[in-house]
């Protein structure tokens, strides 16, 4: 069961080939047996899983099941779960049990899906390697000496190692797409505002977006159907009705114009990775798509722009972690200042502190105009690049990352090298556009991702392009050899 797609599991439950309890037990057993290798989960509550699965089975038996009823899904530990610890990968929230569900979790619960567990992540979603977690690094199932990518590294590794059929993640600068690419799975970051942010611990409010991570575009579509939609309690959530993302799957790519930004194929891109991407593009061309060279002239500004805006927003989003109301609190504070400084000193890790400092600096009087304000102006230029591009093409394609997964520890002491990992993914967040990564080959046994960026609210088209690609290729069906049952 563990090697099946969500679509197959949905059919299996419907046809009573197995029950949700059986299915959930299967994944619980794998997690218990195998996750010590990957460290992809922070919390798994077996009792709650089996209770939810039992309830799902009743609902299936009663004949009022929804699509995902009974499907176990792993959630990044950034989504608040009522009564279950939500740590955000931080010591700061190690003891935090929310009394509410994130809107996204509530959607899955309403659908009858089973919360399989909470996955590991870079602390407060800050990182590209999942090495910044209070709960320890996550290993890449394709080679456990490699990073799985981040910040949704736990979700990506869990799906890749078949410890969960699908997972949720969040993407502020590439945190769904980059780990999806590194772990050989499919992940989509929807348009900003497509999925509610309520109950998702904030990193950078204007960039954060939740999305599904699974083995295929089709599975992502199934999950996104449950996640997308307007939330009146998130003012930045779009009022545009969500589509049925499964409905358009299988549509022809004849006449599809795919833009290839020349800036995404230049220096810095690993040659072998570039070859995989070119091969993938040829496949899309073979299906009737036209490849068009385009330009995103402000691409070279995405990293500096992102690394001002994201830390600036983060520096104030994280002010609420002050030891006063919940979360970590230092022992025996002597006064208010001591409470604040020691609580935050102890509760936050190095990368989080680094970004709080950078962000605080960027917003300070005297620097605001030169940094934050300028970055916002550049952000508009970056967005305009895409708007111009989408007047010529339907989809933009390129590599998700400059190369395949790197070794654990290789870049953990070099933040700038780490930040460069997100060079192709950041722009979609700055522009608010949907972006997807689909498995596009292996380089030395390490997966490579093809990134597809769509126009605003064009998730259905992106998913269809991914789906059509996966109809013709089998990269998404490869499984890592380290995971029992895996076949490479």
């Amino acid at each position, binding site marked *: 069961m563990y090697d099946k797609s969500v679509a197959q599991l949905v059919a299996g439950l419907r046809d009573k080939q197995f029950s949700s309890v059986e299915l959930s037990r299967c994944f619980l057993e794998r997690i218990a047996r195998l996750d010590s290798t990957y460290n992809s989960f922070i919390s798994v509550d077996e009792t709650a899983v089996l209770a939810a699965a039992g309830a799902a089975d009743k609902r299936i038996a009663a004949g009022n099941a929804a699509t995902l009823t009974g499907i176990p899904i792993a959630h990044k530990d950034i989504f608040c779960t009522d009564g279950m610890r939500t740590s955000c990968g931080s010591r700061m929230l190690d003891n935090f049990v929310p009394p509410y569900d994130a809107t996204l979790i509530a959607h899955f619960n309403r659908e009858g899906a089973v919360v399989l567990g909470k996955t590991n992540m870079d602390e407060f979603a800050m990182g590209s390697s999942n090495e910044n977690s209070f709960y320890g690094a996550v290993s890449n199932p394709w080679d456990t000496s490699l990073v799985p990518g981040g910040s949704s590294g736990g979700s990506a590794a869990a799906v890749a190692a078949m410890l969960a059929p699908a997972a949720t993640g969040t993407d502020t600068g590439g945190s769904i797409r980059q780990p999806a690419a590194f772990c050989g799975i499919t992940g989509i970051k929807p348009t900003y505002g497509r999925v509610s*942010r309520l109950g998702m611990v*904030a990193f950078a409010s*204007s960039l954060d977006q939740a999305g599904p991570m699974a083995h295929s575009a089709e599975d992502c579509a199934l999950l996104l159907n449950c996640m997308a939609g307007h939330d009146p309690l998130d*003012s930045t959530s779009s009022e545009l009705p969500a589509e049925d993302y499964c409905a358009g799957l299988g549509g022809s790519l004849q006449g599809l114009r795919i833009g290839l930004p020349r800036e995404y194929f230049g220096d810095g891109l690993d040659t072998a990775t570039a070859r995989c991407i070119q091969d993938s593009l040829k496949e899309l061309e073979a299906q009737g798509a036209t490849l068009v060279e385009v330009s995103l002239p402000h691409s070279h500004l995405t990293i500096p722009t992102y690394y001002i805006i994201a830390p600036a927003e983060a520096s*104030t989003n994280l002010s609420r972690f002050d030891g006063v109301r919940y979360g970590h609190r230092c022992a025996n504070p002597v006064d208010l200042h001591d409470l604040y400084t020691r609580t935050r000193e102890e509760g936050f890790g190095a990368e989080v502190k680094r970004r709080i400092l950078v962000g605080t600096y960027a*917003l300070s009087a005297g620097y605001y105009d030169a940094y934050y304000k300028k970055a916002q102006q550049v952000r508009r230029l970056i967005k305009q690049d895409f708007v111009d591009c989408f007047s010529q093409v339907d989809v933009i394609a390129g590599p998700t990352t400059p190369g395949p997964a790197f070794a654990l520890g290789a870049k953990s002491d070099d933040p700038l090298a780490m930040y460069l990992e997100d060079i192709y993914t950041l722009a979609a967040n700055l522009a608010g556009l949907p972006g997807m990564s689909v498995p596009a080959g292996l380089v030395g046994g390490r997966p490579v991702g093809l990134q597809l960026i769509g126009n605003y609210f064009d998730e259905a088209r992106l998913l269809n392009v991914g789906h059509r690609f996966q109809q013709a290729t089998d990269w998404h069906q490869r499984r890592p050899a380290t995971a029992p049952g895996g076949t490479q």
Partner: protein
Amino acid sequence: MQWETVIGLEVHLQLATCSKIFSGSATTFGAEPNTQASAVDLAMPGMLPVLNAKAVRYAVMFGLGIGAEIGRRSVFDRKNYFYPDLPKGYQISQFEAPIVGRGTFEIQLEDGSTRSIGITRAHLEEDAGKSLHEDFHGQTGIDLNRAGTPLLEIVSEPDLRNAAEAVAYLKALHSLVTYLEISDGNMAEGSMRCDINISLRPKGSDALGTRAEIKNVNSFRFVEKAIRHEIERQADILEDGGRVVQETRLYDADLDETRPMRSKEVANDYRYFPEPDLLPVVIDDEYIEAIAAGLPELPAQKRHRFVEQYGLGNYDANVLADSRALANYFETVVTRCGDAKIAANWVQVELLGQLNRSETGIEDCPVSAVALGGLIQRILDNSISGKIAKQVFEAMWQGEGSADQVIEARGLKQVSDSGALEAMVDQVIAGSASQVEQYLAADEERRKKLVGFFVGQVMKLSRGQANPQMVNELLAKKLV
């Protein structure tokens, strides 16, 4: 040296919405600590603000009330600082693009003259919670009921020149916002709090002196005292050749002094930036027109109308137009009795006097406007004298019924029967031989004064019920 005082006020007005500005929690005053604080107010992880539409509406009403430009695209910003009663570590406020822009505001001074005061801007923001330092044995309790209460911060130009003007400005503001019903204006409960920016400069100078800011003054009386005190303090410093330090001070009502806040209480870099969790508030003509069409007559308009329509003086018009309830009361009295001047007099002197003495609000007044109008009618149709009317009013206040019922029950109807009056006049003349002699010896001018004695005696004899006009006529006839 002669000093001129320059004052600008920042008023924090609590808007009378049922729920908070960014959450659904109630805003009722005086609830048990932390019973009106939701996950949003507590800044739990992942919680997001949703703007209260009514708060926006109220802010626009205020803007229209002072003829201000309405910000067509106003933006919320985060004002960052750490404090235990500020759960998010930032206050959501408006910095660069406020919802209400420049406007002006007419205030009425004690002498009846008016002045126009500039309003720089007014913006929406959320209130913080409350730190409770008592009852926690050296620790601090936090009550977040108030956190997220909608405030409109109204910033004036430095157009005010003394304490009296500042108080007049606040009273006019209070009158406006209660007219608009956008705030209950309850200062004791903190619905209207005031920061005072104050500086001195040599008379005739255009430059502004260094200012001090006095925080959180919450009554008209304290504003007046704090300003008087601060003027004196700054003048002393300047007279001695010293320099005023720009700082934030607190007014201590118990000691009647201002003193500097501890430097820790004054944050310096708030790192304002646009709040990414909220969209800009975009306001179109249609929205503004709909609100404008529904605005009530405002205090200044009403004041001017009272002067024109009823021939009242500026001062009287100002008093009567102070609150919507009082103005409505007055106009009902006028409608009933038909004489605006007497009505104005009665409402201001007798009615307001009684209300003040008994600390009753106009809303709870035991004598209805219709009833008071009925009483005044009885004066106008000579059923009773003005003096008797005061007795009748007392009785009405005590709940003895309408004017007619009281007059009937107490037998206070004016004596206009010429036979009875003539008998009384004769009796007085007969018993006042020396006064009659004096009167007859006096010239025309003096007689006018002396006749008062006879009138008084007749009124005494009639227990005040004699028709004074008829008594005068009879006396004129008989004293020859």
